[in-house]
């Protein structure tokens, strides 16, 4: 049993782990990434599930990837090429639609035909959300200070945070406070009147959460999704050429170019600990590899309760991790199509097919979808965010054919009776039936279908309970509380054992921020 020595081992080849590896390698550390599956990326993977058809299996769009990471790792040189999503169309129940286009004037004209008042308000709203995104941005890159600690670095951090809040001025601070505490529906009600507009914007407040648009706390998630930047423009979402797996590969390429080693089909069983210090890992195969630094990119439950023996951890940490909420609520349906969908509201071919189609006709529609999930069922009439990647990147499908990615809320992990094969298919049927109401030709176009419940997401990627953010983005488990109080700075009680996944600040989305901050902390300490 060979045991080669590395300076650092990263458990999990998800994008955060790859980012950590790249930064450590860049600083001259001999770094090894160990990935259980045959390919890196975690939930950001492209797979040819059916011959000729490439699916962004799980996550499907990007916007939140930190600009400093793109710069520091020179990702464009390694293949990063994000093509903007240029529109969102919301089909309405009455056969009409609401469109939102890349050109702001066109968007305002379109909105004006539904509500002149909202067409004016949307400009001010956009400006405010930009200001809010600017206000929150520094916090994304901040090491969360512990408010209960008297250590100089924490006090300095609290002062910095306090100073930052005061610099916003009362008006913007209050606006931020509202965004942190309100429901997305209430927040939007203060600005807009047109139902489908409110619903479509609200929808970004429920992505990946076990909350409805009327639940307090969803306005924050709305802001979280507004913080995306592409080429300096906030709120722009884009599609990576080759699917989201290509993003992971880009980061992996950068890491390798910097000297990191990546091994796939190398699942880690546990971290080796001696006298309270990490000394390496043991693979599922039995092989042991030594390193004084081990960083887990896996979610907090796996990091603390699976990879190490909980007896080596303080009782309150274990209790806190057991309390940490996942509650996966998202499903995914990927379709291989023999042609394009024909939307009743916008018949035929058009630029709208290169953007997103949002099945969110009203806030009530979304809220009722949530009600189903609250009581343990998947939504009979789900929210759906649909993109056709082959329209932007023809290489994703054979000529004349297409791939369709459908992200769905809600599909609760804890389903009454469990996620049997029959239930999974019934869920897939509910999704397709719903789409068929707005695009009746869809069923005749489907060549193949892949349906993923949160149970499948967990089984394949390891994300506990299929929560796409490695833990709910709820106020009581964010910032200095993520994943648990006192252990929110990427460290663990075991010396040399670190957390670098999205179960730390600032949370999930393809950001890479957790991976980078963890690397910087490791480099500070080691």
């Amino acid at each position, binding site marked *: 049993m060979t045991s080669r020595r590395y300076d650092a081992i990263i458990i999990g080849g998800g994008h955060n782990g790859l980012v950590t590896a790249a930064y450590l390698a860049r600083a001259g550390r001999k770094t090894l990434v160990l990935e259980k599956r045959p390919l890196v990326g975690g939930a950001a993977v492209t797979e040819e599930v059916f011959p000729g058809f490439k699916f962004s299996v799980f996550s499907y769009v990007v916007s939140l990837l930190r600009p400093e990471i793109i710069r520091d790792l020179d990702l464009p040189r390694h293949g990063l090429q994000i093509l903007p999503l240029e529109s969102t169309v919301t089909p309405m129940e009455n056969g009409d639609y609401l469109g939102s286009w890349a050109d702001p004037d066109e968007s305002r004209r379109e909105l004006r035909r539904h509500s002149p008042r909202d067409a004016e308000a949307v400009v001010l709203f956009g400006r405010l959300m930009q200001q809010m995104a600017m206000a929150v941005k520094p916090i994304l890159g901040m090491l969360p200070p512990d408010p209960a600690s008297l250590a100089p670095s924490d006090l300095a951090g609290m002062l910095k945070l306090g100073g930052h809040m005061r610099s916003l001025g009362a008006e913007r601070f*209050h606006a931020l406070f509202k965004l942190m*505490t309100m429901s997305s529906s209430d927040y939007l009600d203060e600005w807009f009147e047109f139902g489908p507009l409110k619903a479509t914007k609200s929808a970004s407040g429920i992505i990946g959460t076990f909350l409805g648009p009327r*639940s307090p706390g969803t306005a924050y998630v709305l802001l979280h999704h507004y913080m995306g930047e592409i080429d300096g423009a906030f709120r722009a979402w884009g599609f990576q050429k080759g699917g989201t797996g290509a993003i992971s590969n880009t980061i992996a390429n950068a890491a390798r170019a910097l000297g990191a080693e990546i091994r796939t089909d190398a699942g880690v069983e546990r971290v080796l600990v001696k006298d309270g210090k990490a000394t390496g890992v043991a693979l599922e195969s039995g092989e042991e590899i030594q390193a004084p630094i081990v960083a887990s990119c896996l979610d907090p439950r796996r990091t603390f309760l699976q990879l190490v023996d909980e007896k080596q951890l303080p009782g309150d940490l274990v209790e806190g991790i057991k309390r940490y909420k996942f509650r996966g609520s998202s499903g995914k349906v990927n379709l291989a199509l023999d042609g394009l969908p024909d939307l009743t509201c916008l018949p035929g071919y058009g630029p709208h097919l290169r953007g997103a189609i949002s099945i969110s006709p009203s806030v009530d529609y979304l809220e009722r979808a949530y009600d189903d999930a609250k009581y343990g069922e998947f939504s009979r009439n789900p929210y759906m965010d649909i993109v056709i990647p082959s329209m932007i990147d023809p290489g994703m499908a054979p000529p004349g054919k297409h791939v369709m990615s459908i992200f769905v809320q809600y599909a609760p992990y804890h389903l009454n009776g469990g996620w049997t094969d029959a239930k999974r298919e019934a869920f897939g049927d509910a999704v397709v039936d719903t789409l068929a109401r707005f695009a009746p030709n869809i069923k005749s176009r489907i060549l193949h279908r892949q349906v993923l419940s949160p149970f499948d997401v967990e089984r394949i990627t390891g994300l506990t309970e299929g929560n796409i953010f490695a833990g709910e983005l709820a106020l009581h488990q964010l910032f200095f509380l993520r994943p648990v*109080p006192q252990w929110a700075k990427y460290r663990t009680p075991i010396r040399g054992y670190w957390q670098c996944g999205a179960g730390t600040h600032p949370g999930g989305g393809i950001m890479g921020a957790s991976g980078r901050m963890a690397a910087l902390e490791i480099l500070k300490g080691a």
Partner: protein
Amino acid sequence: MSASFDVIVIGGGTNGLVAATVLARRGRRVLLLERGPQVGGEARPMEFAPGFRAAPCSLDPGWLPAAVASALGITLPDFEAGTVSTGVALGGGEFLTLDSAPAAAAGAIRRFDARDAERWPAFAARLRKLAGFMEALYVLPPPDIDTTSPGEVFPLLGLGRKFRALGREDMIELLRVLPMAVQDLADDWFTSAPLRAAIAAAGVQDIRQGPRSAGTSFVLLHHLTGAAPGAVRRSGWWREGPDALVRVLEGAATAAGVTVRTGTAVAGIAVRDDAVCGVVLASGEEIGATAVLSTLDPVRTLRLVDPVWIGPEALHAFGNIKFRGARATVCYGLESDPGIPGSEAVVSMTGNPVALERAFDAAKYGAVSERPHVTVTVPSRRWPGLAPAGQHVLVAHVQCAPYALRNGTWGAATSGALADAATRMIDEAAPGFAARVKHRVTLSPADLEARYGLTEGSVAHGELTLDQVLFMRPVPGYGRYRMPVAGLYLGGAGAHPGPGILGGPAWLAARALLADGKGK
């Protein structure tokens, strides 16, 4: 203009009496105006059927902070704490009764789950600690981001010290718990369903959100301020009667020299040169004053001012206040005691967390719950005089009954259907209840609005959600008692610290008025 005063206080309820007395004791000439025939407002019981009386707005006694009592120079009337904190129905006449004393409560819980019983005292102690910090927070004006004046910063430092005195674990726990859903809090600690439902019910008092909503733990802690150690819900009563406190406050106001005029409605607040100069009564009479302190809700208060004096942003912000009264009260006159254990305190009829959450779904769509969440108290157990000999009064708070119905309006039919549903829920919990009912009077949110001047029937003067508390209450930028017109102050429940804190907002508003040097 008739004889002028230094300060006019609008509204003769608990807050109005407190504000007027505090100001008069500091030498101001104060006029208190009350539109009803007597002062006391919600604290005065109403005779809802011949011989049967009840106060429909609040089930628990509220908390009168010691600082407020001392500012009034009063001796509080005798208070009976009782032994029970709350109870919850298990169905079929069985109840889980939670004593304030943790050991006794644990004994009752042991029937269901030994581990829950073991954990109970620590949970109750944790709640007490957190509520204790809220109490310290509630006797100060709310800190805001731009607080710089020494007079405000110094007490905040004291608050900071109290925060640190919680100790590291409880400091973090407070920050962690405040935004949580109360159901998550209950589920983190306990496994037995009725216990979790009892705790969750304490977090959804008078709001339109179910127990799985963020911010409901805050509501539980808010309403726990001033409660006995070991309690999960406030309980107790003034021995002399439901209006014992009001009578003491009335006496204090008179002793301080406050001029009280009842049967006097205010039609408008007069403004000259961007500052308040008095009020105009419904009769047309004008009374001068250099400051006005209103204990009406924020929207009713602002409505008394000509909009030309209020900026468009302020008008827009006040227009966005979420009132969302979603609770109806049903007063029952009963021929005998329905035998609900602990009903001298507040008892929840919903013994199951899923049923509790479901009861709040309909309100999201503008409908009344078919199986509402009902909490009850039998005030005649505390004060037998509320009903004829041997007979009893039961007051039920029914959620959700949203003010704004999508189909239909509040009237006899909708109120009747709601009361039928409430009766059914109580009868399921305490079989035989329905048979004892002699009289039944329903106050829908529309009725509460009409009778007590509560916008949308919101007894809280604005829903107690995380974005409408502290410096955000009633609206951001106007969270410290000073309204958009100079000389106008807000001292009702629509200001910090909010509902159930007797005299709290009024005392702090009066202090703000005095600190500004107004009303001289």
